[in-house]
C-alpha cells in the first residue's frame, strides 16, 4: 500500500495545471514533504449530509509518469496527511477516537476541516457530535475548542461555507429552524484573524478539496474572493466577470454560435437551459472545464451536460428560492 512521496510529487507534477501549481510551487512542495512531518487534519461533521466526504472519496488523478499508476484518496491519506479525526472513515471509536483529536489539538498547527453549518439554536444542541470524558460535545463547542490551535480552517461544502441547505427556506416562519450560521461567521467570532478558506459546492468537487490541502502543505495563502473562495477555483468576479462564469464558459452558450439555441423543455441535448431556470449566468466555478467524476478515461459528466440545470450550488445564497423558471 505504501506510496512514496516521489509518487505524490509526480501526481502534483502531472496535475499541476489542474491544481494551479507552478514550477516553484512544486519545488517548495518537494522540500516541504521532505523536511517536515505530514500535516494533520481534524475533519468535523456538523449540520450537513456528509456528501463532501463522499465526494472527496471520488478524488482521482492519473500519474502520467508511471503508466498505470494512479494516486487515489488512499494514497493521499497514507502518505501525505495525517487524518486524525474523521468519523465516517476512522477505525477507532468512542473515547479512543476523541482522544486522537485531543492529541492533535495538543500538538497544534493542524488544519481544521469543517463540513456542515453550525446550528446555534438550543445552545448548539441540534448537533451533538461526541462525548469526551463524560461530557457531551456539540459541533459549536468543538469548533470553539479547536479554532485556537488550528493553522487554518477549511470549510468544505456550501453548508459549512455559507450555511446552505439547513439555513434555507422561503417561508419566513419556517426557515432555518436550527439557527444555523456559517462556519466562517462562527470561527471569526472566536478569532477574527484566523485563515479561513471556503471550498463551497454541493458537494464540493474532490479536486477543489485536494487543491486546498496542497496549498496548505505549501504554506500558501491563496488569493480569495469576497466570500473567502479561492480565486483559482471560483474566479474573481469583481475583476473579471467572465473568467469563471459558468454561463459564459458553457459550451451551450448561444453567443458561441454554431447553431446553439435555447431549450424550451427538458431532456434536449446541447441546448442552453437559461430560460428554464439554469443559474449558470449567476454562478462562478470551473465546472465547465473540469467537469465531474474523473477517472482513467477522463471526467464522465457534469450537471449541464446531462441537461440538468446548474442550480448555483457554490454560491453564498444557495439554495435560495424556486429553482425552476
Amino acid at each position, binding site marked *: 500500500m505504501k506510496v512514496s512521496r516521489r509518487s505524490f510529487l509526480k501526481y502534483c507534477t502531472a496535475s499541476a495545471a489542474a491544481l494551479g501549481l507552478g514550477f516553484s510551487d512544486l519545488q517548495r512542495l518537494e522540500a516541504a514533504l521532505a523536511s517536515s512531518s505530514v500535516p494533520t487534519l481534524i475533519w468535523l461533521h456538523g449540520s450537513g*449530509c456528509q456528501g463532501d466526504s*463522499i465526494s472527496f472519496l471520488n478524488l482521482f488523478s492519473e500519474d502520467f509518469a508511471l503508466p498505470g499508476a494512479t494516486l487515489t484518496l488512499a494514497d493521499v491519506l497514507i502518505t501525505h496527511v495525517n487524518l486524525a479525526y474523521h468519523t465516517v472513515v*476512522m*477505525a477507532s471509536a468512542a473515547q479512543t477516537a476523541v482522544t486522537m483529536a485531543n492529541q492533535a489539538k495538543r500538538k497544534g498547527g493542524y488544519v481544521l476541516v469543517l463540513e456542515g453549518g453550525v446550528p446555534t439554536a*438550543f445552545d448548539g444542541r441540534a448537533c451533538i457530535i461526541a462525548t469526551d470524558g463524560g461530557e457531551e460535545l456539540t459541533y459549536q463547542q468543538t469548533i470553539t475548542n479547536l479554532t485556537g490551535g488550528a493553522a487554518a480552517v477549511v470549510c468544505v461544502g456550501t453548508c459549512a461555507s455559507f450555511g446552505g441547505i439547513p439555513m434555507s427556506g422561503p417561508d419566513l416562519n419556517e426557515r432555518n429552524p436550527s439557527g444555523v450560521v456559517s462556519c466562517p461567521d462562527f470561527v471569526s467570532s472566536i478569532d477574527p484573524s484566523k485563515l479561513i478558506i471556503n471550498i463551497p459546492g454541493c458537494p464540493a468537487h474532490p479536486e477543489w478539496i485536494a487543491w486546498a490541502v496542497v496549498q496548505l502543505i505549501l504554506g500558501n495563502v491563496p488569493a480569495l474572493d469576497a466570500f473567502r473562495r479561492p480565486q483559482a477555483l471560483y474566479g474573481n468576479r469583481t475583476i473579471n466577470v467572465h473568467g469563471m462564469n459558468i454561463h459564459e464558459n458553457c459550451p451551450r452558450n448561444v453567443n458561441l454560435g454554431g447553431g446553439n439555441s435555447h431549450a424550451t423543455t427538458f431532456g434536449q441535448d446541447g441546448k442552453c437551459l437559461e430560460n428554464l431556470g439554469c443559474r449558470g449566468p449567476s454562478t462562478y466555478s470551473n465546472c465547465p472545464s473540469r467537469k465531474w467524476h474523473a477517472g482513467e478515461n477522463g471526467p464522465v459528466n*457534469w450537471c449541464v451536460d446531462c441537461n440538468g440545470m446548474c442550480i448555483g450550488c457554490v454560491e453564498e445564497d444557495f439554495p435560495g428560492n*424556486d429553482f425552476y423558471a
Partner: protein
Amino acid sequence: MKITAAFDPVTRIEGHLNITIEIDTVNGVRQVVGAKATGGLFRGFEKLLIGRDPRDAQHITERICGVCPVAHGMAAVKNLDAAFGVTIPENALIMRNLVNGSNFVESHILHFFLLSVPDFIEGPAMPPWQADWEVDRRFSKADNDLLMGHYVQALTMRRKADQMTAIFGGKVPHPPAYIAGGFTCTPRQERIDLFNDFLDELIPFVRDVYIPDVQLLAAKYPDYFTLGRGYGNLLAFGVFDLDTAGSSKLLAQGHVENGSRNVQSLDVNQIAEHVTHSWFEDGPASNPASGTTVPQNPKDGAYSWLKSPRYNDLPYEVGPLARMWVNGDYQNGVSTMDRHLARAYEALKVAEAMRTWVNNLNPAGAVYNEPTLPQSATAYGLTEAPRGALGHWMEITAGKLSRYQVISPTTWNCAPRDDAGVPGPIEQSLLGTPVENPNQPIEVMRIIHSFDPCLDCATHIIQPGKDAKIFRMGVC
C-alpha cells in the same frame, strides 16, 4: 453490577446517532441488558420545503443525505409524478433505475469494506485505520492482509460505481438528472457503451471479491449468525420498477413478521408514527400523510428526536435483508451476518440487472413528458434506499408545497420505543449480546454497523433539549 458503557462517537456510520447501552451479568454472562437509540442532528427539512415550488423537492431532499441522495431523488420524483398525474417514458424509467442501482452497489461496497471490515481486521498503525481496540480478532495475517488489500481496491471500485452513477445522473452526490415527468439525461450510445465498460469491471468485483470476502467473514465469525437478531419483522417498499406503471419490481414490496417465510402484501395506510417517547407533543399515532410535528422538549419519558414508525403497530427492520427476504432471494435467517450476506448478494443481483436494463435503452427515444403543475394535490412516493425502505409524503396548496414528510430507513431501524413501550429494532437487536470487554464493546459496534445506519436521513422535525444525561452515550 450494572455498567453503563459510554462510547461516543461510534464511528463509520453516516450522521450523528447516540445509543445508550446498559451492560450487566445475567446467568454468568456479561451482556447488553438495555439500549436506547437517539438521533444527534436536527435540520428540519420538512420546514425548509414549505412554500417551495413542488419540483424543487427533488433537489432539496437529495441533500438530506450524501450517501443515499439518489434514493431521495427517486422518492421525490415518484411523489411528484403521482401528484402531477404524469407517466414517464421507458427510457426515463431505465435511467432512474441505472442511477439508483449504481448508487446501491456503491453504497454496499462502501458499507462493507470501509465501514464494517475495520470492526474485524487490524489496519495499518496510523490514522485513520489505527483502532486501538484489540478485541476478538480471528483472521490470520494472510487473511487480514487480503482484506486490507481489498479495502484499498474497494476505494477504487466505489469511486468507479459513482462514475457510473454520474454517466446518466450528471454527478453524485446530488444528481441533477431526476425530474418529475422523466429524466433530463439522454441515453446516447456512447453513454450506454461507457456504462457497460464499467459493468465489465464492477460485476466481477462484486462476484469474485465482495461476496467471497463476506463469506470468509461469515466462516470466521459464525456466532454472528445468532447475534443481533431483533424482532425478525421485515418490511420493504420495493424498488427498481420494471414497467412504467410500477406493477412489477426487481425487488418486491411486502412484509413478514418474526422471520416468517409467508410474505404478506403491504398497505401503506397501516404505517403510523408514534411520539410518546419522542420530543413531540403527544398525540395519536398518525400516518405521515396527515402527521403533525410539534416539538416538545423536555418531555417526560422522551429520549429521541426521531419518531417511532410502526406498521400494524409493530416495529419493523428495513434494509437489504428485508428486501431479499420479501423477494424470496435470501431467507437464511435474521442476524448480523445475514444482513452482510443479503447485502452482498443484493449488490450482485442489482449489478447484473443493470446489464439488462442498460441494453434496453433506446438512444432515439424520449426521456421526458412535461407535466402540468396542479394548484393542489396530495401524493406519496415509495422506494428503497440502499439501507432500506424510504417514503416521501407531500401536500401541494396554491401551487406550492404545504406539507412534506419523510420516513427514512434509519427512522425505522433506529426508532425509539413506541406508545406501548416496545423498543425499536436496533434497540431490541442489541439485547442479550455478550460483551467481552465493556470498555471496547466491539460486539455492539458490529451489530449496529450491520444495519448500515444513516442518521443524516432521519430528518424529522425535532427540538433538542436540556436533558444532558440522555446523551451521555452516543453514536456519531
